[in-house]
């Protein structure tokens, strides 16, 4: 009823605060916690060089005598104390996690960006050109979708390694990883954009653009991108969680980033080796970090999808 209906507040910030999506965010404790955790880990990773007490990548700062120090206990030989203990090579686990998260997040964001640009471009081309270009691209997408993306990433990674001379494999590993994960995950963006393009391309303004000589694709891009922002954002958020997991998995399998630049997956791989000998902290803390990061981003994506598409709730 009109009596109980609150008027819309004025002011840009106030309006944003009062919008449905902001309301849904404020009233969802899960979303708030997930956002806080994500932002916290991302900031910690960005400012790792400032926060980390040690530089795990600098071999000069490592002392093998410091190896296997349990958390919060002085080392038997050197007397040094590490918050979260040290690994087999005497690296501070806390610092390694910060730098590891940095690598995981970098690979994750880069892979998502790559997949997004690729997917949006291909979706736009498929939707705009139609015909055999469309059929071909969508067929490829269908076939690709039936295969798990981790398998594809592995294959692409393997193939790329075959092409890269052994001397460069270590250096190129991160970029190969980004391309492999990105290539395995472009399909959903392409589908969304293709659908939107097919709807828009016959509208009058696109035809008009053609008449005045502007490139219709440019026009389409400007009109379609705002339309598909919501779904693309959802796909990208969930895609980020998937990419982080994929990177960790590949690194855990020993085919990801090189051991000299350990990501969270590499750390867990190292930790697993010392599980039976009782050095649990090498495994536990990177695992918790990875889990928190993946879960938080996933929850955020899940919430975003529900918030943008209330019918699904």
């Amino acid at each position, binding site marked *: 009823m009109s009596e109980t209906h609150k008027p819309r507040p004025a002011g840009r910030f106030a309006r944003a605060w009062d919008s449905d999506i902001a309301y849904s965010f404020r009233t969802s404790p899960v979303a708030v916690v997930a956002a806080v955790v994500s932002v916290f880990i991302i900031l910690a990773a960005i400012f790792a060089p400032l926060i980390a007490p040690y530089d795990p990548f600098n071999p000069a700062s490592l002392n093998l005598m410091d190896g296997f120090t349990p958390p919060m206990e002085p080392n038997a030989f050197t007397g040094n104390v590490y918050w979260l203990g040290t690994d087999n090579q005497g690296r501070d686990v806390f610092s390694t996690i910060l730098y590891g998260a940095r690598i995981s997040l970098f690979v994750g964001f880069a892979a998502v960006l790559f997949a997004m640009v690729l997917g949006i471009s291909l979706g736009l081309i498929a939707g705009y050109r139609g015909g055999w270009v469309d059929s071909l691209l969508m067929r490829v997408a269908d076939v690709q979708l039936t295969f798990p993306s*981790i*398998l594809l990433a592995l*294959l692409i990674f393997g193939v790329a*390694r*075959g092409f890269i001379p052994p001397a460069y494999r270590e250096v190129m590993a991160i970029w190969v990883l980004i391309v492999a994960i990105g290539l395995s995950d472009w399909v959903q963006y392409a589908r969304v954009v293709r659908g939107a393009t097919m709807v828009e391309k016959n509208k009058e303004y696109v035809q008009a653009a053609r008449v005045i000589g502007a490139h219709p694709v440019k026009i389409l891009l400007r009109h379609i991108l705002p339309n598909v922002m919501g779904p693309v954002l959802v796909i990208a958020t969930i895609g980020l969680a998937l990419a982080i997991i994929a990177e960790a998995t590949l690194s855990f399998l020993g*085919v990801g980033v090189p051991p000299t630049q350990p990501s969270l997956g590499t750390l867990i791989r190292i930790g697993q080796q010392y599980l039976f000998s009782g050095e649990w902290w090498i495994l536990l803390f990177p695992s918790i970090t990875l889990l928190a990061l993946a879960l938080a981003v996933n929850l955020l994506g*899940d919430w975003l999808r529900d918030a943008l598409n209330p019918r699904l709730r």
Partner: protein
Amino acid sequence: MLAFILRRVLQSVIVMLTVALVAFALFRFVGDPIASMVGQEATLAERMELREALGLNDPFIVQFFTFLSRAVVGDFGISYRLQQPVMELILSRLPATLELALVSGIAAFVFGVGFGVYTALRRGGWASSSIMTVSLIGVSLPTFLIGVLLIWVFAVELQWLPSFGRGDVVDLGGWWRTGFLTESGRMSMILPAITLGLYQMTLIMRLVRAEMLEVLRADYIKFARARGLSNRAVNFGHALKNTLVPVITITGLQLGSIIAFSIITETVFQWPGVGALFINSVRFVDVPVMAAYLMLIALVFVVINLIVDLLYYLVDPRLRLDRSAAGH
């Protein structure tokens, strides 16, 4: 019906040919097969001779045809790394992978559908809310982390279950070694099966839930309620059956991806299956094994796809009989 099957089979053959082309391109252009087969000291003449002998100088299409005709009879050449015929390697490891996939696939389906239906019907209840939360953790947890954590808890701390390998196996007819028949074989199966099945289970569960909620909103469900049918008849007789039609398709494909996902589980548990073989081939750029594995996985997917389509056809009357008349 026959035309439908034929069309499906034809499509499958086209997919297989495409994958074969990719596999062949891998085989032919990734790395240098000659360098991988001969030692450093081989002379140029020897290399040229080997090139000729292997048919590497033939036109592309001839080479592809040769590759195909060999692949059909299971000849994928020799592994660069292990110096054994690829097919022999794969066949000896396939039973381990298939048994693991079977157990986790069945478990994933049964629990996935069960929990999915429960959470859809009891939406908002505390039990289904907790199941949904746990399932989200299940989706977010990388498979390898689940495996590692399970090993830590059940093998290292509690020491209830073995942490690696298949345990004792029994040889069946010389070509299938099963772990089902021994105590240690069954015990060894538990942790890997949970690891492999958990992710699939959460996916199936979330899919069933979403699909069921969609169906429960459908007009024919409202109409069924308006006719006074009991809750049980509406939920299980009408809603569940309609839910399962699309679920079958996607679940079938999920079961296919279980075999692919076993790469990770097999690595974590040192399970002697084809997945572990593949991961090593990627590490060492062992192209013949990669190519053969690719073809194998594609074959599994194509076969499962075919079965799923046929199943779909049997379950949904709209596709039956007068497809051309009612459809399109």
